[in-house]
């Protein structure tokens, strides 16, 4: 036994939907004494005490004094906090797992859209609860930069429970792990709970990807997991940019590559600006490297959450450079990003014309597609199909647009 007192979680005047638990193990007598201070005590006092007793019993703790300072934490949060406190005091491989929601058992695909992916700090339960409601393409529980060093362990347990208990409503289920050894250990806490994609930060070499992938396959074998875990390296340094194509090709599971401009500009020793001239080379290089490897290039987050117009301009620039998505640090950014990457009216109109021409050519057995007097190359047709797909998925076009047109013609 290391010591006999531990604390986990957060409390304070601004903290909501969380709790801070102090646990003191007591030798061999006295039983369990729980002191609960909670704003929801009249409504959930008994259930919080029962849950705490159940967890202590699960870990074989018979004598302890527990202090719970609760600001309306959901059960999976309370459970994570207590487990984190316990694990500071006793070595155990046991995990007190809340129920996995059926809604969360879905897989992802290589080429799904990744326009917006919302970062959720890994130790902030209040931000997790409604994460699934904002229609982000992906949700990233972040164990890296948004978690303070002394909170890394408890965040893993919280994120694990969140992955099981929060309905992410079809968003791609992502976790950003830490760098190095700590990141490899993070994987053990999250991979068994249906992760669709792992973000690998500060990526500078294919070796990093390989190590993460090996660790994941150890875990998937151990737990007999079926779903594929995709990878998204984040390029955040000059060296990473130089090697981005190699990194993009390092595994068939690398489906997208993101650029992190805060660290990249720091590495270059230049300030990050809104118009981003200093990162123009890195961004285009990243786009080219990704496209060459056949994966999606994803742009950095826009950090001024109050400046929606700035974000809008940034997204349009991003799209023009060839990026296929962007990170979000606030749910309000999601719609702006989605709209920015969405095809505009002219693009949709042209794509429709091309697809119709293609189908008519197919029907009449023609090998060549023509629009008016102009020949259309196969890649242009493919791109038009992609635009149509996108428009349908974004609700800009009804799924049956084609039949409607034919009906009108008839």
């Amino acid at each position, binding site marked *: 036994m290391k010591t006999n007192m531990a604390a986990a979680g957060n409390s304070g005047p601004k903290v909501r939907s969380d709790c801070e638990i102090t646990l003191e193990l007591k030798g061999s007598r006295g039983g369990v004494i729980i002191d609960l201070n909670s704003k929801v005590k*009249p409504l*959930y006092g008994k*259930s919080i005490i029962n849950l705490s007793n159940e967890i202590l019993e699960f870990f074989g703790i018979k004598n302890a004094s527990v202090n719970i300072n609760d600001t309306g934490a959901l059960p999976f949060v309370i459970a994570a906090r207590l487990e984190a406190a316990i694990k500071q005091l006793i070595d155990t491989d046991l995990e007190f797992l809340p129920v996995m929601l059926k809604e969360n058992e879905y897989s992802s695909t290589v080429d799904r859209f990744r326009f917006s992916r919302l970062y959720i700090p890994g130790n902030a339960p209040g931000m997790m609860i409604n994460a699934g409601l904002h229609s982000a393409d992906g949700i990233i529980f972040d164990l890296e930069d948004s978690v303070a060093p002394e909170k890394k362990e408890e965040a893993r347990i919280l994120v694990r429970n969140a992955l099981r208990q929060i309905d992410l409503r079809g968003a791609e289920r992502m976790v950003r792990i830490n760098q190095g050894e700590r990141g490899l250990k993070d994987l053990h806490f999250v991979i068994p709970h249906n992760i669709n994609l792992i973000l690998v930060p500060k990526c500078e070499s294919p070796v990093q990807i390989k190590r993460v992938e090996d660790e994941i396959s150890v875990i998937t074998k151990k737990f007999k997991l079926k779903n594929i875990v995709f990878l998204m390296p984040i390029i955040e340094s000059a060296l990473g940019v130089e090697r981005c194509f190699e990194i993009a090709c390092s595994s068939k599971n690398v489906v997208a590559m993101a650029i992190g401009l805060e660290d990249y500009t720091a590495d270059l020793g230049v300030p990050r600006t809104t118009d981003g001239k200093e990162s123009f080379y890195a961004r285009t290089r990243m786009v080219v490297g990704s496209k060459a490897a056949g994966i999606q290039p994803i742009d950095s987050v826009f950090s001024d959450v109050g400046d929606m117009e700035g974000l809008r301009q940034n997204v349009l620039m991003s799209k023009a450079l060839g990026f296929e998505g962007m990170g979000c640090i606030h749910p309000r950014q999601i719609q702006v990003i989605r709209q920015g990457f969405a095809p505009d009216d002219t693009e949709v109109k042209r794509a429709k014309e091309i697809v119709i021409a293609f189908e008519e050519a197919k029907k009449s057995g023609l090998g060549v597609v023509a629009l008016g007097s102009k020949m259309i190359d196969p890649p242009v047709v493919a791109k038009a199909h992609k635009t149509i797909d996108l428009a349908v998925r974004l609700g800009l076009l009804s799924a049956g647009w084609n039949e409607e047109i034919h009906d009108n013609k008839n």
Partner: protein
Amino acid sequence: MAIKTVINAAGRQVPLEINGKPVIPFKGVGKHRPEGGKYSPPIPTCYDYPDDGNKVVNSLEEALRKCGLCDGMTISTHHHLRDGDLVSNTVFDLAYSMGVKDLVWFPSASFPCNEHVIRYLEDGTINRIEGSMNGALGRFVSEGRMKGTAVLRSHGGRVQAIQDGEVIIDIAVLAAPSADAFGNAKGTGGTSACGVLGYTKADYMYAKKVIVVTDNLIDMPCFPMEIEGNYVDYVVVVDKIGIPEKIVSGTTQITKSPDRLLIAELTASFLEKSGILKDGVTMQAGAGGTSLAIAVFLHEILKNKGWKSKFGFGGSTKYMVKMLEEGQMGYILDAQAFDLDAVKSVELNPNHIPYPVFNAYNYHSKGNLTSMMDIMILGATEVDLNFNGNVVTHSDGNLLHGIGGWQNCLHARNVILPLPLFRDRIPVIVDDVTTLCGPGELIDVIITERGIAINPLRKDLIKSVKGSGLPVKTILELKEEAEKICGKPEKAQFEEDIVAAIKWVDGTVIDVIRKIKIQ
């Protein structure tokens, strides 16, 4: 001393007597129609007042003495100075120093600054409060520490109680940002401007004695007068009636919470897709962060469609003023101004019109403004499976809020409650509301971040959004969704003692609040 109780038409157990006076149990919406005449105050004679019209006396204490302040009297005050009010507390400081006991305080609302009167509730200067009690005062009542039983009424219910003679005001003390020596007064001008004095009308018309307190005495006539000097007995000039930055917020802000914004967006979308929002629409929304965001979203839709709202009913804010100024709203009829932009607009824009609750919410009026409103955005602490609403207590049983105009506003054409499905683990949709404030038949739509529930009585609305892609669910589905996330809460525990009565807009007792059981 058990008081006889009955089950009222809403199924709630209520007493037949409160504070020693008989009361009528709730009979159903629109069922109670009293006969006879309205209460009338004593008849004055103009010869008893100064010919030169100068009613200024030296101090509030002198005015109270001249009004004959004594034990057991009912004193009314108003909340248009909100948390910056320096007048209402002073009245009770003076009453205490004069040794007066057992007063009834009849405010239009109380604010955190009024915690000050707890000492007078404890020492017997005040017997009880008949009005809204927030925060500390509410808790004081819930813990059963107030001598008399609290009576909570809506803004319109206050007017009804005055006109029915159910509450006879002995002295009304009206704080006024500007007044003349005759007692004409208004809400603008001076350093304590609040814009509108929308709650004072019934009080100055029906009180036995009326005192106007101002820190900005101007030459006769104080125009446009919201309080007419012909009803006023005395005018008192003080240094300061209020603390300006606490009277109106410098600027009201729309919510920054992504979850609340999502609810606001969904609400705007519902109003658009259901066809409730249309050219010529009439609307009212509060000053809460979510309501303001809804106003902003609705403004955008009106602008894009080239539509115009005929009029909006305040509380007004800069967002409503913006609609007025940019041409998406014809008029603002206003009972209170929440921020500096709104105060300025009342003063300068002829289409921004003070409109007292006496005319908007009054049960004994020949028609009301609320029933003419197309869109009514309201809040609630709880809603139950029958769409009944609670605005006064929390699920833990504590009294923490007043009714405000909420009950009156339920009479609008479309009553929409945008609410988070749970607040810090506490579900908003419950089996049965802890305290019934508004019958479910008047509440039409609940909009949460996880779905929209439409009252089954509103078949038209259900039909209007079919196939719209909006996440329409039953209220039971929403409740179950919340409980799946939060767990099923236990019920609050109460003692037998009744600590507060909730009046319906017609003066009948719709529910009571009992003393909280300390666990």
